[in-house]
């Protein structure tokens, strides 16, 4: 059961503010707008409302983003009993053509890979439809520098030659400057997996295409399920559970905004802005669980004896 002491709903915050400020239901809608604004703004920096959702795709190469998606935290796929993290790329992926304002231009459908069907869904633009891709079968393959447009999935063979295809997991051997690759760190050490490397068709990474509201994946992506952790704000309906320690800051924000939207309210609003800033600072302090000892240890780990 959700502990009532830990969370507060946005409706409760609105009603508390109205009551404390001697207002009636006539101010409800306006106060709600400012409360939602406060939650939205604070969620970007100080109050990450992390949601968990398992997305399931049909035979497409994308999942639909949750409607309240704001930013990602992490993603994973199911391997047996476990969730295995997958990389979230921010680089280039094959991208539906847009006319520059993030809108599809229907007259240009034929010039771009893929088509939009009559219900507005993109089909066939990343490759063939997924057949039952399996992580452990031949569908699992790695990119290489020689065959970027490989179509046939292929298992990595044993390390037989100094070919980049088969040297994914070897220490850096000098066949390519390490800074051209993100397989190696700045000391030339293999990071352990070919994370984020290649032409965008990495089998173990996804690309979140916020503008189109989809998460794309390579055509051989070995899972139909995607476990997505994301910052979800959405609308007031999904803001139902806010940490209670944020209530004072949200209420202070409402007071500040209600003041400056009144006629001649700027001077009063500037005072209330300071009160809000203080409340926000306190809220961030409540969120900050780092102690000085934690920071010393973190610094020690990064710059301490191991590098000496």
């Amino acid at each position, binding site marked *: 059961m959700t502990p009532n002491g830990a969370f507060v709903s946005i409706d409760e915050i609105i009603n508390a503010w109205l009551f404390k400020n001697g207002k009636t239901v006539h101010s*409800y809608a306006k106060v709600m707008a400012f409360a939602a604004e406060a939650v*939205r703004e604070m969620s970007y920096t100080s109050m990450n409302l992390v949601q968990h959702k398992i997305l399931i795709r049909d035979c497409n190469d994308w999942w639909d983003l949750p409607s309240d998606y704001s930013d990602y935290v992490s993603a994973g796929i199911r391997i047996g009993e476990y969730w295995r993290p997958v990389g979230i790329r921010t680089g280039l992926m094959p991208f539906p053509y847009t006319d520059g304002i993030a809108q599809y231009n229907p007259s240009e459908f034929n010039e771009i890979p893929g088509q939009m069907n009559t219900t507005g869904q993109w089909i066939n633009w990343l490759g063939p439809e997924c057949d039952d891709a399996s992580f452990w079968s031949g569908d699992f393959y790695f990119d290489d520098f020689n065959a970027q447009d490989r179509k046939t999935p292929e298992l990595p063979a044993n390390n037989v030659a100094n070919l980049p295809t088969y040297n994914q997991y070897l220490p850096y051997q000098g066949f390519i400057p390490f800074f051209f690759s993100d397989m190696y760190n700045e000391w030339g050490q293999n990071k352990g997996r070919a994370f984020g490397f290649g032409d965008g068709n990495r089998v173990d990474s996804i690309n979140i295409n916020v503008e189109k509201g989809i998460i794309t994946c390579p055509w051989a992506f070995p899972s139909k399920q995607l476990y997505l952790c994301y910052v979800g704000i959405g609308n007031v309906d999904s803001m139902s559970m806010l940490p209670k320690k944020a209530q004072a800051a949200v209420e202070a924000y409402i007071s500040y905004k209600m003041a400056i939207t009144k006629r001649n309210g700027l001077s009063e609003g500037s005072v209330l802005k300071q009160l809000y800033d203080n409340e926000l600072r306190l809220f961030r302090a409540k969120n900050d669980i780092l102690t000085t000892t934690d920071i010393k240890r973190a610094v020690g780990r990064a710059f301490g004896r191991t590098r000496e």
Partner: protein
Amino acid sequence: MTTKSQLIERVRRILSGGYPSNRDRVKDAEIEKYLESAINRLLKMEMFNMTYTVDGMSIPDGVMLATYENIPVTLGLNDTCTAVLPTTPMYLPERMGVFSVYPSSYPEAEFIPIPSGQYYILQQVKEINSLLGRVPYIWDGRKLTIYRNLIGDGIYSIDIKLAVADLANIGPNDPLPLSPELEEQAIQACVQIFLTEPRTVRDESLEASPENYIK
């Protein structure tokens, strides 16, 4: 505490120069109407003085609120319902004249007032347009438009609280919502209206004013 009848008598006494009579040119019904106007004006001033104070409070005193129960709702277009206000409320900031609207007997399910002209603007703001499931309404003239198919939800009537001193609903001997210091002002305001009228000479003959001769 005073009543309408008491105030009318006091006004008539002044107008008749101390000798109220059923032959007076001004009748009770006329005085009553003027008294109601005067009282309403005084109450509104009083409401502004008492309600909209510098501390930012803006809740009308309960004495100004009248509850009208079981107002029928009519199904409108596109999942809306309409209802007609039983009387014209006061003009108050934040449209507080219509103080509260809710399904009959369920005051806790109060509807949310939206300023007229802003409902469809609000609908475009996806972040808040659900209003957390609360029912919005707007108020134009005497009509309330409620943006929910109440009849489909099995609600056929609503209760409405209006900020109004609806003196028409107060009987001649019911207590008025008028504080003592305002009684004198109400009487004076009413008397002033009649005193400015052109006076005619009263017929004091036995035939016209027999009460003068019955002592």
